[in-house]
C-alpha cells in the first residue's frame, strides 16, 4: 500500500516537473531536445531489440522450412516449396534415433527433483549451520564456500566414476549428485539470509514448546520463502541447461536430457534432418521462454541475489 502511494506521489511530482518544463520549453527549447533524444533512444533500442531476438526468430522460421533449405536460405521466410508445415515437428520427435519427448521428460524429472532436493536439504542444513555454529558446522560451511570456486573439470572424471560405482547414474538418483556439487551456492545464500533474521522468533517458538523440527517447518520455512525462490530459480536455470554433468554421470544410451540430445545431433551434423533439429530446438526453447515470462520478476531478483555470491 505504502509503496503504491509513494509511487503515485513520485509520478505526480514527475508530471509536475514535466509540466513546468513544458511551460519553459518554448523559451529555452531544452526540453524538446530532451524529448527528441528520448524518442531517438527508444527507436534505437527497438531496432537493437529486434536484432536481439532475431536468433530466436531464425529458429522459428527454420523450424517450418524443408530440410534442404535450412542451410542455403537460412534467413528467408518459408514460403512455397520451402514451407514444410508441421512435418518437421513430427519428424523431430524421433530424430537421432531417440524420442525427443523422452529427453524432455528426463530433463524435467532431473530438474524438478534436484531443485526440490537442493532447496529443502540445503535450507535445513543452512539453518542448522547458522544457528548451532559449532566447529563441524564451520567446516561444512567453509567447504561449501570453497566448492563454489572449484570448476567442474577439476572433479568431473572422479565424480563420474564415483557416481557410477554408487549407481547414481539414473535420472532418479542423479539429484543426489546435484545436491552434492551444487550445495555450495545454496548453503551460502541460505546462511546469509538466516543470519539476517532475528533468532528471537525461533527461541520464542522453542520456549513455547516447539521441537526443532516443528520450529523449522512452521516458523523458519515460511520466513525463508524469498531466498528459496531465488535459490530455486538459480538451480533450475543451471540444471535445466547443464550438459556435461548429466552427460558424464548418466548412462547416455538409455537416458538423454535435452542438451545431451541436441549435442548428439550436432555431432552427426550433415547427416541429420536440419529442419527437424530446428523444430526440436524451438520446442526446447518455448518452455524456457514461457517460464521466463511468467516468473520474470522472481528470475531477475534471483539473478541479482545470486550475482553477489562471487
Amino acid at each position: 500500500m505504502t509503496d503504491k502511494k509513494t509511487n503515485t506521489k513520485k509520478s505526480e511530482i514527475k508530471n509536475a516537473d514535466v509540466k513546468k518544463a513544458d511551460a519553459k520549453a518554448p523559451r529555452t527549447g531544452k526540453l524538446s531536445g530532451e524529448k527528441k533524444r528520448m524518442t531517438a533512444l527508444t527507436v534505437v533500442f527497438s531496432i537493437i531489440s529486434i536484432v536481439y531476438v532475431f536468433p530466436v526468430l531464425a529458429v522459428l522460421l527454420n523450424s517450418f522450412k524443408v530440410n534442404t533449405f535450412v542451410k542455403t536460405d537460412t534467413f528467408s521466410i518459408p514460403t512455397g516449396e520451402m514451407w514444410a508445415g508441421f512435418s518437421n515437428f513430427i519428424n523431430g520427435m524421433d530424430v537421432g534415433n531417440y524420442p525427443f519427448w523422452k529427453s524432455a521428460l528426463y530433463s524435467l524429472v532431473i530438474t524438478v527433483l534436484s531443485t526440490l532436493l537442493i532447496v529443502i536439504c540445503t535450507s535445513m542444513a543452512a539453518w542448522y549451520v547458522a544457528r548451532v555454529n559449532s566447529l563441524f558446522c564451520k567446516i561444512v560451511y567453509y567447504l561449501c564456500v570453497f566448492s563454489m570456486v572449484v570448476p567442474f573439470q577439476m572433479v568431473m572424471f572422479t565424480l563420474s566414476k564415483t557416481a557410477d560405482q554408487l549407481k547414481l547414474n539414473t535420472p532418479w538418483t542423479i539429484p543426489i549428485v546435484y545436491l552434492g556439487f551444487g550445495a555450495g551456492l545454496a548453503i551460502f545464500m541460505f546462511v546469509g539470509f538466516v543470519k539476517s533474521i532475528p533468532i528471537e522468533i525461533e527461541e520464542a517458538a522453542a520456549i513455547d514448546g516447539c521441537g526443532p523440527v516443528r520450529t523449522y517447518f512452521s516458523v523458519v520455512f515460511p520466513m525463508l520463502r524469498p531466498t528459496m525462490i531465488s535459490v530455486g530459480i538459480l538451480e533450475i536455470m543451471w540444471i535445466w541447461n547443464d550438459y556435461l554433468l548429466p552427460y558424464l554421470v548418466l548412462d547416455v544410451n538409455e537416458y538423454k536430457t535435452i542438451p545431451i540430445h541436441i549435442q548428439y545431433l550436432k555431432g552427426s551434423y550433415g547427416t541429420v534432418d536440419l529442419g527437424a533439429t530446428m523444430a526440436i530446438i524451438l520446442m526446447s526453447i518455448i518452455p524456457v521462454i514461457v517460464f521466463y515470462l511468467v516468473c520474470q520478476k522472481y528470475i531477475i531478483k534471483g539473478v541479482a541475489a545470486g550475482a553477489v555470491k562471487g
Partner: protein
Amino acid sequence: MADEKLAKENEAIEESDDEFMKKFSDDPENGTAEKEKEHESFPSKLSRLYWGKNRHNPLTKPLRKWVLLFLGPVTAAFIIGFVWPFIQGIYLSMCKFQLIQDAEFVGFKNYISAFNDAGFLRSFWYTALFAIVSLVLINVLAFAVAYVLTLGIKGSNLFRTVFFMPNLIGGIVLGYIWSMIFDGIFSALDMPSIVQNSTWGFWGLIILMCWQQIGYMMIIYVAGLNAIPEDMLEAAKIDGATRWQTLYKVTIPNMMPSITICTFLSLTNGFKLFDQNLALTNGQPILLENGVGIKQTEMLALNIYSTFYGTNTSARGTAQAKAVIFFILVAAIGLAQLAYTRKKEVQQ
C-alpha cells in the same frame, strides 16, 4: 579541514559508544565474556569451539540432537559429489592411470607433461585473450544498456525483458542456434564456414557470449544505478555538471561495487566457458604446428575434457594435472575478488 575534524570527532564518539556498549552489555559475544575468553583454559576453549556460541540456548540445545536430519543429507551428498572426488582428483593428478583402480604414483610428471603440451599452452593464452576481450565488451555494452534503460525511456521494461532472455537458453542450444546463423551468413557471403576460419571462430564465440551475457550484467548494473541516491545526482545537476561529468564523477564512482562484481563474473565465466565452445566450433579448425595437430579455437575447459575423453586414454593423468592447474587459476581469480571486495568494505 573542518570536515576532517568533524569526521574525527564522530569517530571518537562512535568509539566511546562501542566501549560503553561493551561494558554494559550481557551479550557473551562482545561483553564481559570477551575478557573471560582470554583467560580461559585450553580445554574449555576447545569445547567452546566445538559447541559454538549458543550452547545453552533453548533453541539450539535440542536442535543438536537432530544433526543427522538437518545436516546429514547435505553432508553425505557433499562428500559424494564434491569432497571425495576433489581429494581423489588431487591424488590422481600425480598418478598414471586409465581407470581409477590402476592408478600408479608418478609424482609431478603429469604436471611437467601438461606444461609441455603445446595445445594446452595455446588454449591457455586463447582463453585469457577471450576472457579479457569478452570482459571488456560485455561490461561496456551492458553498462551502456543499463544506463540508457534507467534514463526512463519508453518501453524500458520491454527492452529489459528482451535483453535478459538469451540468458535462460543453455550453452549447447545457444551454440547450435548461432552455428546455424553463422553458417547462413557465411554461405550467403560465399565464405568458409565458422569451423574452418579461426578468426571468425573467435569473434563468433565473442558475439555469442555478448548476446548471452549482456542481459545478465545489465540486471546487476540496473540494480546498482537505481541504488545511487537521487539527491547526489540532483546536487551535481544544480552545481552545473554536464551529463558526461555527472556520469564520470558521480555515477561511475558510485557504481564501483557493481562494476567489480560484473568484472569478476565475466572473467570467471570466460575462463570456465565450456558448453558454448563445444557446441559452436568444438575447437576447430585443427592446424599442424611443428608436426602436432593443434585445435585453434579450443579453450582450457574443452582442452581438459578432450584430453580426458580423447582417443589417447593414457593421457588421463596429464588431463587431471591440467584440471588441477585450471582449478588453481579459477580459484585465484575468485580469491582475488574476495580480497578486493573485503578491502573495499573496510574502506567504507
